[in-house]
């Protein structure tokens, strides 16, 4: 139901992102999803990768502080209205979305979601039979 996500503190400095991503590429770690939000001072780079443990070790070895968190990975068909429907189920259950990023492949979408209440979010997923994916599914996409 959850997958590991790596978060890396990213300075607002030209070339920083490229430098960090290059570390993974050279060690054969594949990036499945990534997001970075901009603020004036700093950003946080969030990554779903093919081998989170390895990526974590690579970052540590280069003195880059990384934080490993668990996020939900939900699979839907890419029809209009599906995102809204799923989010509304969380809302009805009183679960807040802290952040979310999505990507679509063929006719399917993957939503990566971080909520304020993991257990309640699981409950919503079970109750409404929302299709979720695990790390292996993501790697094989």
């Amino acid at each position, binding site marked *: 139901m959850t997958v590991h*996500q790596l*978060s*890396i*503190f*990213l*300075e607002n*400095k030209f070339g*920083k992102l490229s430098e960090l991503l290059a570390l993974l590429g050279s060690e054969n770690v594949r990036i499945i999803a990534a997001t970075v*939000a901009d*603020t004036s*001072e*700093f950003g*946080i780079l*969030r990554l779903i990768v093919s081998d989170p443990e390895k990526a974590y070790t690579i970052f*540590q*070895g280069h*003195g*880059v*502080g*990384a*934080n490993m*968190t668990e996020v939900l990975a939900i699979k839907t068909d890419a029809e209009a209205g599906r995102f809204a429907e799923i989010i509304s189920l969380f809302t009805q259950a009183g679960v807040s979305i*802290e952040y979310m990023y999505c990507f679509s492949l063929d006719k399917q979408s993957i939503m990566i979601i*971080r909520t304020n209440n993991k257990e309640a979010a699981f409950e919503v997923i079970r109750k409404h039979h929302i299709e979720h994916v695990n790390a292996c599914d993501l790697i094989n996409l």
Partner: protein
Amino acid sequence: MYWQKDLETMDRKSLETLQTQRLTELIAHAQQSAFYGKVFTEHNITPESIQSTEDIRKLPFTTKEHLRANYPFGLASVSLDKCVRLHSSSGTTGNPTVILHSQKDLDQWANQVARCMYMVGIRDTDIFQNTSGYGMFTGGLGFQYGAEMLGTLTVPAAAGNTKRQIKFIQDFGTTCLHIIPSYATRLAEVMYSMGIDPKKDTKLKTICIGAEPHSEAQRKRIESLLGVKAYNCFGMSEMNGPGVAFECTEQNGLHIWEDYYLVEIINPITLEPVPVGEIGELVLTTLNREAMPLVRYRTRDLTRILPGECPCGRTHIRLDRFQGRSDDMIILKGVNIFPIQIETVLMGFKELGSNYLITVETVGNNDEMLVEVELDELYTDDYAVLQRLTKDIGRQLKDELLLTPKIKLVAKGSLPVTEGKAVRVKDLRTFA
């Protein structure tokens, strides 16, 4: 427990007699130099002017500007054939300065350093690695000769190449280090990132840290990271180099060797002595340096004399942790700020690393301060938490400094760390 028990524990009255006698001899000797010959004549000073140590106040101060103006040999009190070494400081603003040493001076200097090292428990069975630059920088050769006199096996690793430093520490079983505080935390970080736990995987137990002002919190952090006792040492090239003052195992103030130096603490504005216990500028007179004595040298370092006796039994007075330099002080919007105040606040946050950089610059018509500080580890993936941290740091700095600096969190390892001294302050203001 003492290197020279009779001198280190000498009662105050005998110490003062010794100082007065050495001061009288010093005046007679220093007038041999072109510089002091002229200065003493102008001020009508003769060896008879000195009846007690109080009489030092009849003499004029010596400053770095005097050393520069009389570069290179204008303060030599012996002929150059008696001198065996010189150390010169970098001359980033004008002429460099030169300090000359006779063989007797070098022997005394080594003895001072040996006395300091012995005081913190270093013995001839220890293995001592010196991470200071050698050459003109006195932290290299100064510690080298002191450690050799003490009889430790010395590893003159010199500065830089952190991986090689760590290899030496492991291969040779290094027990003691001389290291700059900012580099000590860097060394520990690199060890941990290599999977080495200095507490288990090395024999380190005692380290001498100096050459940079640092807070008590930073010392504690170094001690817990490396699993050692860290002792604060003070020295400056004008006063030979390391070995001028050093903490004993009480870790409460640095004993300054009063058989070698006469100590005054003055108000840097009025130039009058401050009462014991108050902070002021340290002024030192070398009591038995042969090649180049200095009289009432203004060190620009700010400290105070700790009142009372030290439980270690040494009678030489203790200087408090240095508060920065009278010329490092940042004056911003009329407020006097010392980098150590900022460091103390930052070290209070366990989320933060040990490196920081203070930048002062003119933005529009305003002078502003930016404090950049490294995050230790990314302990959250939540922006809000980091923004709150930034706010908390800002608030605490405001309480301490009475003005509000801008705070910027930066990634670990991104601030400039030279393997020499860390850059702490950048003043980009133009004073037109």
